[in-house]
């Protein structure tokens, strides 16, 4: 990952809980850097970092309610929320580009290399301090691949 910026499938999987019946935060923070807004923003203290700011965050999935406050708190935009919705996954992701996605539009679903892997239906768009938190629905099989969206040309 130090060469490419892309985590391995194993590393990605280790960030996910056993089940996504309820929405949970997926924190992809693979490196020790001095940072703790995710831990201090969590309203139910599900994320812990501790005294040493450099430690990677640990999430207690039992406490996590999937509220998504951490999504727009993370300066690295490394957190998203995932939830199983039938044959689809609902992802809530941070997004900081124009144009702003509109509810009902079908955008392109991207993997961590920026490659198109399918379609993402825009469900909801929230604005938190100029970072958009976009709720999308993607097919279930994209669970470990999906990370972001791009507007189709």
């Amino acid at each position, binding site marked *: 990952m130090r060469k490419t*910026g892309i985590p391995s499938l194993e590393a990605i999987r280790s960030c996910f809980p056993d089940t996504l019946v309820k929405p949970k935060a997926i924190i992809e923070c693979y490196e020790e850097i001095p940072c703790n807004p995710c831990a201090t923003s969590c309203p139910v203290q599900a994320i812990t970092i501790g005294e040493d700011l450099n430690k990677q965050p640990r999430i207690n999935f039992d406490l996590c309610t999937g509220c998504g406050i951490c999504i727009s708190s993370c300066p690295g935009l490394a957190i998203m929320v995932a939830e199983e919705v039938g044959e689809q996954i609902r992802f809530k992701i941070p997004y900081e580009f124009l144009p702003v996605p509109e509810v009902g539009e079908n955008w392109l679903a991207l993997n961590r290399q920026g490659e198109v892997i399918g379609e993402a239906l825009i469900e909801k768009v929230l604005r938190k301090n100029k970072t958009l938190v976009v709720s999308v629905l993607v097919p279930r099989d994209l669970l470990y691949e999906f990370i972001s969206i791009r507007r189709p040309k």
Partner: protein
Amino acid sequence: MIEKELVIIGGGPAGLAAARLAAEAGVEVLIIDRMKQLGGQLVKQTHKFFGSKKQYAKFRGIEIAEILSEAALKLKVEVLAEAVVLGIYPDKVLTVLKGEEYIKIKAQAIIIATGASEKVLAFENNDLPGVYGAGAVQTLMNVHGVRPGSRMLMVGSGNIGLIVSYQLMQAGIEVAAVIEASPQIGGYLVHAAKLRRLGVPIITSCTIKKALGSNSVQGAITVRLDEAWQEIPGTETTYEVDGICIAVGLSPLSNLLAMAECRMKYIGELGGLVPILDSSYQTSQNGIFACGDVSGIEEASSAMVEGGIAGLSAAHLLGKVHPQYDELLIDYKQQLSNLRSGPGGVKIRKGLQKMETL
């Protein structure tokens, strides 16, 4: 000759933090800055900052600039903006140029917080218009709303290279690739991940060989490097770009410190020539302090904390002890230790170890 109690040269995160602490201790502070707007390099940082709550983590750089400026101005800190300090003398006299006006100021104590400057990279045609320091591109985009090009090549994958590439994409400018001479990505992995998501390639063991174009950049030729950092012939790639951003590191702007005859030392890990400081950030010249990037290249979060210590120390020297002097000093030193204790702090710790103690 104007007389001032404490003059702070540089109104960036270090200078502003120092101003606030010194003013809180009852010192009359004057900040001199080259720009009209205070905040130093923070005014062009649109991304959210790391660190902890005490260093305003989660806030965007531009917001932190406002918070720090307001805090200092509220305490009636005087500001001389659009003014350049031309000279500094060991008897603490400063010569300043503001427009056409030449001003002489005698200070009782001085804090130098002049920050750092982009390093340059040597390659063929590196003087062509269209070759920019990464910070220049940020200034143009984020402060003035100007697009310096439509497709750029980023040289350097440290935090600045990665962050500016992301900001280029946000401004609607394509980044053809980020190239890095070393075999690994230099900056935070989360910054690299944000770029990869956008489809921007990050190519390690690769450097720029030549810029193409007659009057301005029209392209760039990169070449791969082997384990000994030598060019591998035949691996040249040509990119069609109208701008090349150089993000290969910063160097402290330490000219004023040298002029004031402070003892200096060249420490590579800290970015270049730095002043030798004691634990209160005082240089070898009594009453002259230095903090922020000028004392060693680090982050804005550390600059703010260092500025706080320098402000408290300068005030103390002037006989004005901040009501929370002891607690704050302990807290600030702890904050710096926290920021530097992780793997990201290896370089700065090594650099600081090399600094002699006075």
